[in-house]
């Protein structure tokens, strides 16, 4: 599902180029639930950005779901991302002026997937799966953090992507809610989704299928590989 080969990522800074990833090799199989752990500034988010096509590598190849991301233009990457990857952010990142259901429908709208009525039906189905369908017509601001993250997960599933990438999905939630969200992820893996989750929480990381530890831009514990 995911194949990173000798991936290097450098950022220009005033003090010269800063190497955030120093030649990373990772392989993740379909249906895996992988936790990426590491300290702040270790290169976790950069790694996630490579996998989601949010950022491009300086060298090396990033192949996700059979597509070499380096060969896609920005526009093609956007279309690819919309259909292939569901992204879940730490701060939920819902659009504040759209209702919960509209937030979930948005990826379908941009990807031009299904007819408008079908989009609404699918959004409601996903919200029911996340047990928050009663909030469908509320604005995100009216929901708690845990509820907003459920909406974000529903949104990430809108186009039924085979891969879910979550960047600190529980980092902003209390432990009970974090646990509930983790259960949701486990359920999605059972349904055949591949999940890559960045986390600080070592307990949660241990509950994933395997964990990858990133330190100073290198994979130091490729766990399970």
């Amino acid at each position, binding site marked *: 599902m995911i194949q990173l080969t000798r991936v290097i990522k450098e950022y220009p800074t005033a003090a010269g180029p800063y190497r955030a990833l120093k030649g990373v090799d990772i392989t993740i199989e379909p249906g895996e639930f992988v936790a990426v752990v590491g300290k702040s500034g270790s290169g976790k988010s950069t790694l996630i950005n490579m996998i989601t096509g*949010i950022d491009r590598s300086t060298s090396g190849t990033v192949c996700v779901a059979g597509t070499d991301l380096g060969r896609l233009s920005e526009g093609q990457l956007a279309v690819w*991302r919309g259909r292939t990857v569901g992204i879940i952010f730490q701060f939920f990142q819902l*659009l504040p002026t759209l209702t919960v259901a509209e*937030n979930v*429908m*948005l990826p379908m709208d*941009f990807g031009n997937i299904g007819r*408008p009525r079908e989009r609404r039906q699918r959004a409601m189905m996903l919200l029911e799966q996340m047990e928050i369908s009663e909030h469908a017509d509320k604005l995100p601001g009216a929901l708690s953090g845990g509820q907003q993250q459920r909406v974000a997960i529903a*949104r990430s599933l809108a186009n039924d992507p085979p891969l879910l990438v979550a960047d600190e999905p529980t980092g902003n939630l209390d432990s009970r809610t974090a646990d509930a969200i983790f259960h949701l992820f486990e359920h999605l893996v059972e349904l055949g989704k591949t999940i890559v989750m960045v986390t600080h929480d070592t307990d949660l990381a241990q509950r994933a299928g395997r964990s990858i530890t990133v330190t100073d831009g290198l994979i130091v514990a490729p766990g399970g590989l």
Partner: protein
Amino acid sequence: MAPRWSKVVRDLFAYRTRTLLVVLSIAIGVAAFGAILAGLTIIRAELQSSYLAVNPASALITTQPFDEVLLENIRRLPDVADAQGQRAVAARAQVGPDEWVDLQLFVVPDDGLMTINLVRSETGPWPPPDRTVLIERASLDMTRASVGDVLALQLADGPTRSVPLVGLTHDLSLPPAAIAGQAFGYVTADTLIWLGGPADDNQVLMTTSTGRDDAEHIQRVASEVERLIERSGREVLVIDVPTPLQHPVELVLGTLVAILATLGLLALLISGFLIINTITAILTQQTRQIGIMKAIGARTSQIMGLYFVLAAGFGLLALLLALPLGMFGGYGVALFVASQLNVTLEGVRWPLEIMALQGVAAVLVPIISAAVPIRATARMTVREALSGDTTPPPARMSLLSRLLSAVAFIKRPTILALRNTFRRRGRLVRTLIALSLGGAVFVSVMTLRVSLFTTLDDSIAAQQYDLEVQLARPYRAERIMQDVASLPEVTHLEALVRAQAFPVQPDGTTAEMVNLRALPAATSLLAPRMSDGYWLDPADERSIVLSTNYRTKDPTVQLGDELTLRINNRDTTWQITGFVEEFLPPTTPALGYVNLASFTRAYGGTGRVDALRIATTGHDAAAHAAATMAVEQRLNERGYEVRLIRSRTEDRDILSERFNVLTGVLSLMAAIIGTVGGLGLAGTMSINVLERTRELGIMRAVGASDGAVQQMVFVEGITIGLLAWLIGTLLSFPMSYAMSYQLGMSLLNLPLTWTYAPLAVVAWLFIVLLIASLASYLPARNATRLTVREVLAYE
């Protein structure tokens, strides 16, 4: 509705203050643009339809007295649609104890029926009863009378008669009295005879059957009429072919249109800058949202589409305001201009084409203005957009910050405010452009106004005489000068001859009249302002100096050209040796100066003059009035018939009145553009405060008082205002110079005497400070109303 369009709609209404600012920025620009175009469209259409409705004469031919038989013969000529006789006589009306105004009297047919240059009766009987007069409505102010009053009227060599003013007319074939510099009245033939005037008509008004808009064709038909008149044994004195189907004031209107259209576009341009500022602020605020949308699959084109629709949405909301504002404003402009041009707006007409243009402008201006920031933000990579902040915090202090920090006496909040002013340079530049342009236009318009009057004063100053006496007929120069020179009020005087001369064209027809002044070449009562060539030389027998506005009538004319002038059917050729600057609108006939001795040798009348130019001991209005009275009394005592005495102060009043429309409309436009600029500053201040809400929260959390926060916002606003004032002032120099040159050339065919208006700079400083204070007040108040918790939670 698809979620992305729901987002656009909700974004429009979610942030009301911001939406209001953008909408107002667009609306004022579009409304000002629409008002100007609508006003001019309404007035032009009205002027044209009203003017055509009076069946304007294609040509006016002045000849010797004639009867109905001649008219019948003219009507039978091929391509003559109609011909009508007319008698116009120069007279004067008394407006004060010793004050008179020029009045042109027209004779109305006994049955009141007219077919060409139709005159409409406004109030009172038509035709006027014998021994009464009707006054053209735009002349009423000049006569200082009301309907029901009795006017003292006098023909050039007739008695003064008391004539009741029984009503008003509307005559659209004439320029308004203020522009013509004389009043117009209507009497019957019997009344004219009673006043001492001639009985028969002396002007033929004619219309052509075809080619009514073709001046050359009309000229050819008029030449046929001329030949027919000459075959009847009469001399043709003048053939006047006015610009076909064009009201006399349309020439002035052209200049007004050009200036106002430029100002309208400027208002739109300024509004464009404000839109860029606000849309950029919105995009900055929504950068992270854009990142999220891209992360979940939105393409750059989809993001751009979203924000273009948002910009168009702002435009459509603005249109709701701008349409009625523009149309009512336009109607106001039209009403104002109509009142000045003596036109009545018949019914309410809403120009659909201008409404459509407003619609296009309202949608396109924000889209075009926002294109660059939208493109730049939408093309950001997902990672950049998700990181949110488009401008990373500076790594080192700027030179300005270091300088400010080094100055010990400046308080910390002030230093912060001054630094903040320069933080968003693009926004600052656009705000400065908007406000500076507003200021530059304001100062330029005021300078234009002052320059108009300086040019007028210069022109008046060139006349180094205080009074001009026009006599009813020629008198011996030596005697009349002796009679007047002995008055204590008189310090110096010269005699001259005034004549109406007609340039003879190669095909034998005559062009528009030239007002000829034959005066001593070595005159000391005129300081001619030569624009080209040289003044009359006593040794030059056949030289003529023309006013520069002659060039608008004959653009091919050059120094050294020969000009044949016809006076009383006698042709003499003169060589043009100079052009002199005179304050004459294009509608006024050109002036020509020739040597008095040469003139009398060419046209006869040696030793006789019909006008005096007098320098008096005093030069103010009171001294002029006293001298006028003394001169008139002396001339009457000695048996001279006076047609008119006009003082320099009266001349100035008449001329300055001609520019009231122009300066009035220009001042209005300056106010509108200033408002748009002020709105820009208000927008910038509110965006700045909004963007720094978190920063302000941090400051309040560490102990910044309400006063300190407000001071920061105010100092920033005032700093921007002062910078805009400075730039606007600098910009106003070239702008006002260019405007003075352009206006002068198109209006008077000479550049205005550019006179900068420093008072306007001072006034603009106060206005800018007021605008800056008002623009900062609300954001400053809002900044102190937020609690620390609210501002730190702000996103």
